[in-house]
């Protein structure tokens, strides 16, 4: 039987090594021509030759989910289970990047947690390009370090589920691993020193510093040209940077464990804390603001009508059709004066913005099922249901 695992192979994670790949994908690989023709009777040595011929990585593609040769070779390695030394040789070799990536992938699936971090992290320094086949059959560009990052942080890659490994800081706290030393650490220290010197020289003032820190994100820190960018951030598009930072924080919140793993700079921690504080504060502020808007709208509706006849008439008409009915039933019209004299100029944009918010989301639909469905759709990035 050609698809049987080598009888001398050990169990990996409690099961036949080939079972690390799911049943459906496994069946697809067994039925694949490349597997049947090229991967029959391969040994560790001949496998290297096949691996050197690889020219792209990828998962399954096409309408009937054909596997790539890369996946077939991974499967072959699982079947014959080469020695750990051989796999490490694959990773250490510098000439053939696809052999390296193949070894890294195999180690990620089969290796112990310590081994994974130990052998895969040096590969972060490899910046070479890789050709990656996407699910629809097209090729895209990626890099070796991007792929390694995917292996270490995501739990799915090339249509194969990655086994769970312990987080880096867990291993560090147990003492099995050293804290991460980045190859760029020296460069960071240089930058730090330069900045400190500048501060001492009084080139920056207090306000400027705060804006600069807020606008920063770890990606930009890694960029060595931050000094050049500094003035640009300060002057224009302050709000835009701020919004982008907020989104980034939200993202980063999810991947925070990853950041802790890559804990490089104490400065970065300082910035992050500051940014997170700002983010929380801003959200509360916005929520208050929205509540106050709605009350103001109710109050202003009466006042608006008296102002200009033609405009208000058309607006009344529009209101009466859709939103107004609902509003009248849902909330009392009695004015609640929380604010002082209202700002005539700020009314219009606020009213428009609130209207847009109500319509866009749809999560406050009276029918709870539809509201729930809309919430799910919003989280997936889809438009709300048009009831």
């Amino acid at each position: 039987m050609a698809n049987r695992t080598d009888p001398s192979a050990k169990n990996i994670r409690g099961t036949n090594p080939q079972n690390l790949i799911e049943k459906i994908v496994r069946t697809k690989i067994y039925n694949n021509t490349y597997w049947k023709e090229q991967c029959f009777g391969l040994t560790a040595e001949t496998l290297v030759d096949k691996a050197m011929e690889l020219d792209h990585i990828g998962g399954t593609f096409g309408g009937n989910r054909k596997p790539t040769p890369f996946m077939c070779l991974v499967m072959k390695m699982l079947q014959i289970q080469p020695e750990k030394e051989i796999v490490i040789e694959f990773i250490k070799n510098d000439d053939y990047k696809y052999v390296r990536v193949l070894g890294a992938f195999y180690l990620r699936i089969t290796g112990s947690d310590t081994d994974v971090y130990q052998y895969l992290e040096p590969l972060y320094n490899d910046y070479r390009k890789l050709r990656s086949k996407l699910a629809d059959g097209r090729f895209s560009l990626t890099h070796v370090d991007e792929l390694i990052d995917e292996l270490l942080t995501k739990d799915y890659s090339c249509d194969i589920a990655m086994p769970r490994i312990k987080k880096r800081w867990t291993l560090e706290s147990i003492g099995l691993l050293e804290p991460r030393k980045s190859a760029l650490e020296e460069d960071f220290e240089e930058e730090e020193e330069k900045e400190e010197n500048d501060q001492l020289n009084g080139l920056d003032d207090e306000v400027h510093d705060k804006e600069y820190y807020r606008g920063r994100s770890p990606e930009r820190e890694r960029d060595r040209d931050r000094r050049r960018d500094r003035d640009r951030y300060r002057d224009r598009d302050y709000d835009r940077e701020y919004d982008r930072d907020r989104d980034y924080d939200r993202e980063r919140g999810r991947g925070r464990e990853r950041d802790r793993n890559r804990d490089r700079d104490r400065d970065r921690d300082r910035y992050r804390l500051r940014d997170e504080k700002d983010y929380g504060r801003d959200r509360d502020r916005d929520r208050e603001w929205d509540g106050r808007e709605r009350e103001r709208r109710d109050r202003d509706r009466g006042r608006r009508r008296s102002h200009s006849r033609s405009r208000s008439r058309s607006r009344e008409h529009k209101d009466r059709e859709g939103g107004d009915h609902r509003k009248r039933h849902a909330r009392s019209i009695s004015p609640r004066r929380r604010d002082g004299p209202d700002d005539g100029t700020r009314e219009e944009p606020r009213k428009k913005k609130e209207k847009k918010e109500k319509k866009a989301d749809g999560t406050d639909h009276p029918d709870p099922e539809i509201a729930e469905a809309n919430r799910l759709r919003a989280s997936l990035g889809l438009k709300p249901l048009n009831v």
Partner: protein
Amino acid sequence: MIEVVLNDRLGKKVKVKCNEDDTIGDLKKLVAAQTGTRADKIRIQKWYNVYKDHITLRDYEVHDGMGLELYYN
């Protein structure tokens, strides 16, 4: 808004509310959220026609209450 029923004949029967101008890809995401499978592992068919991700439900003439077959990749 239409409601589509997806059945995989192995015990998973899922009712999903969606718009007619949603694509099949969006429908797969909604189904994935409800069943717990990954969206790219799902295949939606009608007899032997595998429905493609970028085409809308309206173009496939999927109406309210219609049943689709759920398979896995």
